[in-house]
């Protein structure tokens, strides 16, 4: 743990909301608001998240408040779990406000069968998943794309995968933005980025990414669960990954470019990683087009993994193993959205969009209850299905948390537990584990993360999203 307890003045706005006033530092343009209970606040104040939130509050064109979700933790530039909105007219866009893993996100698949029916062949199915979906920094030789195909993925997203037989037409309406942002321009993505990504479609990657087989073990909102097609005992699959090396290179390219043009735009920042450019500038528009393209790559990556999971479940369970997409949400992205009378560029880094029932971007099947939001727990702990709320628009630009949030560095995690110990503990709880490296298993031990139940409880009580269902893991394929 770092020893950096926040020294900024804090005002309690409510039981779960603290504010750092705009006057706390002379260069702040807006206040900062942090959603947390007392326990989470102690963890937040103990790393550099607060200072990073204050730095974000200095960005040109930022409006309202800079928000921190209860899973916020120290990152680089923006903290992970931060939300900031900039006016399109005179605000900036910051690649660091999206992060290197552009459109890292989560997709939930619901099976047409329950765990009881699946259990006899579950271990074989999880093993088959680990063989069929490359993890770690692995490549996918079955989907090595030509340059032209990479460009089509970047501009058409999951629509291209329908054409290639890797997606069903009905899948598209259950993806955020239909799995393709319209502003994408493949010509703005560097050759280097395309080289890094051309054979990575359908791969998990490393770090905290995973494919997890789960069971719905508790319902909190029956109406929303019914709308999402979820019932107790049902088997589900949660996919957590992003745009892989392609997205990493897009961020690297544009952070470098913006770092060099900020002086020309008269922008001075407290942290170089916040490098940014006006949304209306050539550099700002170029990054937005490249970021949208990388986001489309990420949705396509999760789609290709979905296809592999469907193939495995078909082999294991026949027609009973068919899988329907519940939804797919991004938690590292910047999007142009209408808030009140203004068009804003909402940066969500480690935060999830959570629109309510009346929002026009909430997909048709979920208009009665709000869009689904998925909050993965740490490896081996429960994940949650939430529903977006209309109130969240006024509370957080329609955003909620994205996960549990780290409290322990990777090194500290490895020093506290061995990979073998973590594996034994998970298997002792009946969870089938497949991981290419014991070290990686130790780095992602549940003790390295905040308590996801506490994080979800805060967003529920604060009105940022409603609890719908809890998912318990039964099989983990770790990246």
């Amino acid at each position, binding site marked *: 743990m770092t020893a950096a307890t926040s020294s900024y003045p804090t005002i309690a706005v409510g039981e779960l909301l603290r504010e750092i006033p705009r006057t706390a530092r002379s260069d702040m343009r807006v206040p900062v608001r942090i959603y947390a209970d007392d326990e989470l606040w102690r963890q937040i104040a103990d*790393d550099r998240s607060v200072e990073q939130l204050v730095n974000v509050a200095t960005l040109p064109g930022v409006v309202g408040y800079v928000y921190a979700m209860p899973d916020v933790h*120290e990152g*680089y530039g923006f903290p992970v779990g931060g939300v900031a909105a900039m006016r399109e007219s005179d605000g900036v866009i910051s690649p660091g406000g999206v992060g290197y893993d552009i459109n890292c996100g989560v997709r939930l698949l619901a099976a047409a069968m329950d765990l009881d029916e699946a259990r006899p062949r579950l271990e074989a199915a999880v093993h088959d998943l680990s063989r069929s979906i490359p993890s770690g*920094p692995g490549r996918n030789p079955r989907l090595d794309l030509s340059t032209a195909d990479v460009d089509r993925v970047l501009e058409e997203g999951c629509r291209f995968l329908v054409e290639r037989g890797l997606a069903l037409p009905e899948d598209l309406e259950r993806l955020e933005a239909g799995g393709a942002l319209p502003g994408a321009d493949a010509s703005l993505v560097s050759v280097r980025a395309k080289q*890094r990504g051309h054979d990575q479609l359908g791969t998990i990657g490393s770090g905290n990414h995973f494919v997890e087989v789960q069971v719905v073990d508790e319902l909190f909102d029956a109406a929303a669960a019914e709308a999402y097609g979820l019932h107790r005992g049902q088997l589900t699959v949660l996919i957590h990954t992003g745009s892989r*090396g392609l997205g990493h290179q897009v961020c690297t390219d544009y*952070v470098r470019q913006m*770092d060099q043009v900020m002086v020309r735009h008269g922008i001075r920042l407290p942290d170089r990683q916040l490098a940014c450019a006006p949304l209306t500038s050539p550099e700002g528009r170029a990054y937005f087009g490249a970021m949208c393209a990388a986001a489309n790559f990420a949705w396509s990556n999760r789609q290709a993994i979905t296809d592999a999971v469907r193939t495995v479940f078909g082999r294991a369970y026949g027609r009973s193993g068919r899988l329907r997409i519940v939804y797919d949400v991004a938690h590292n992205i910047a999007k142009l959205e209408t808030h009140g009378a203004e068009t804003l560029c909402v940066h969500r880094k480690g935060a999830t969009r959570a629109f309510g029932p009346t929002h026009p971007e909430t997909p048709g099947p979920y208009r009665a209850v709000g869009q689904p939001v998925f909050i993965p727990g740490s490896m081996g702990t429960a994940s949650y299905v939430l529903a977006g709320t209309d109130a969240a628009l006024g509370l957080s630009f329609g955003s909620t948390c994205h996960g549990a949030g780290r409290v322990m*560095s990777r090194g500290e995690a490895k020093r506290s537990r061995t990979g073998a110990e973590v594996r034994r503990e998970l298997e002792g709880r009946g969870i089938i584990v497949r991981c290419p490296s014991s070290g*990686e298993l130790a780095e992602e031990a549940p003790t390295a993360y905040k308590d996801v139940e506490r994080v979800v409880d805060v967003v529920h009580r604060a009105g940022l999203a409603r609890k719908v269902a809890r998912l318990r893991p039964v099989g983990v394929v770790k990246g």
Partner: protein
Amino acid sequence: MAFTGRSGGRTYVEPVSDTTIPAATPALPSPSHEIVDHVSEIRLRVRAGSLAELLEEAGRAAAQLQLRGADATRGTWRTIEVSAPDRAALLADWLNELIYLAEAERWVGADFEVDSAEDGRVRARVWGVLIERAPALLKAATLHGLRVDDVPGGLEGQVILDV
């Protein structure tokens, strides 16, 4: 064969996590690096007598992180040139070049001979190994907390690596 390294400066890992840099010792007898805890990423600190040695040592640190236990096949030399607006950005861009080559070509730079290094430009001969599958690839070198400072006896650099 398992990669064991061909040459390099002293390497040590110090499990501390604050950003307060201890007062530098007057003499820096050989390049060294530390991999320091960060909540979600990796903080790399490098010390050396000159910019050329600093970049060589940073390259060795990246190799250490990317080659953990990886099977390395044949090695080759190549020339790498990187330019940047200042020497701190040069450290980040140098590492980003190595990260790009590791992922795009599965070629991990492991031994470094810098021919020339000035504040905004480096030219180096790099010996690297082809690997089939790296256990831990770095995503990027960030600009957060990035610095290369003059210290008694040489230079000290810091860079946060996204992993």
